[in-house]
């Protein structure tokens, strides 16, 4: 049996699925802010989490095809909030034709996520889609 450390025990799990469309990003942002607000994060830290999740969703939208969804999972652990944002297209494939008009700014979103969160990992696979995993430590 795999040992699970106390720090990795899930205290709460919130799943949200939104359409991969610009008008839905605000919903994800507000939902994640509500989760962060339940924890001991400061106002500034909640704003950081909101922006990071919105940037992750925006990245997913750039890869999404019409009709695709974005899955957002917030997992509350003892010492941190882990968030996974995943493009969940029906085909599981990305559509690079749907990239936004400001393609030159692509790197800025990921840069912001890296600056605002404590850990960030992401995978972009043309077959399985895009997935960003990030975490923010809870204040001591």
């Amino acid at each position, binding site marked *: 049996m795999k040992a699970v450390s106390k720090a990795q025990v899930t205290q709460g799990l919130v799943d949200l*699925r939104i359409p991969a469309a610009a008008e839905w990003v*605000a919903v994800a942002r507000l939902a994640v802010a509500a989760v962060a607000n339940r924890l001991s994060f400061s106002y*500034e830290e909640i*704003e950081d989490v909101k922006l990071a999740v919105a940037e992750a969703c*925006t990245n997913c939208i750039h890869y999404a095809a019409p009709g695709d969804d974005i899955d957002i999972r917030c997992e509350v652990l003892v010492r941190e909030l882990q968030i996974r944002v995943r493009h969940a297209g029906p085909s599981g494939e990305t559509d690079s034709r749907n990239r936004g008009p400001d393609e030159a*700014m692509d790197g800025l979103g990921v840069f*912001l996520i890296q600056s605002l969160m404590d850990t960030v990992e992401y995978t972009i696979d043309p077959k399985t889609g895009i997935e960003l995993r990030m975490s923010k430590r809870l204040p001591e």
Partner: protein
Amino acid sequence: MTWQEIRAIVLERSLATLALVLRVFMTEEGKFSPRLVSGLNLQSKRASQRQPTNELDLNKMPRSESLDITVSVRKANDQVHVVEIGGEIDVYTSPKVKDALGELIDGGSYYLVINLEKVRYIDSTGLGVLIGGLKRVREHGGSVNLVCVSPQIRKIFDITGLVKIFGIFPDEQSAVSALA
């Protein structure tokens, strides 16, 4: 009244009630944010495949709060225009800002003050629009100054290093004066 007549009335009323219930469910699921319902695991696969009826399409109804942004333009002096933005600048709302800036620049206004005092949120898409505007006015020898008082928004400009390419001021008067 015969037993057959009573049964016919009961059956008719039951069917009417069933039709009403179905209509309510189809309206809620088929027309109003079916994906949100799906996200909450309240919607069956069959329900998601239903075609919306034509009776009350909430998605086609006007929603005054659907775009959480306001953009207004005014002249500060002969040379400088002020673009006052309020609300949230994100991937959904930034095209409105882009259009307003584009219209001004196309009209020959190359000295702009973008007032972000009433902006509660900005993301990389919004930053991209501001950078795009700055690039365009610089092609004509112009400039863009920003008014920013929110520490959170100022932080985004600090993190991204954009404080070095935009003039950022705490009030509109000093932002306008700096362009004169």
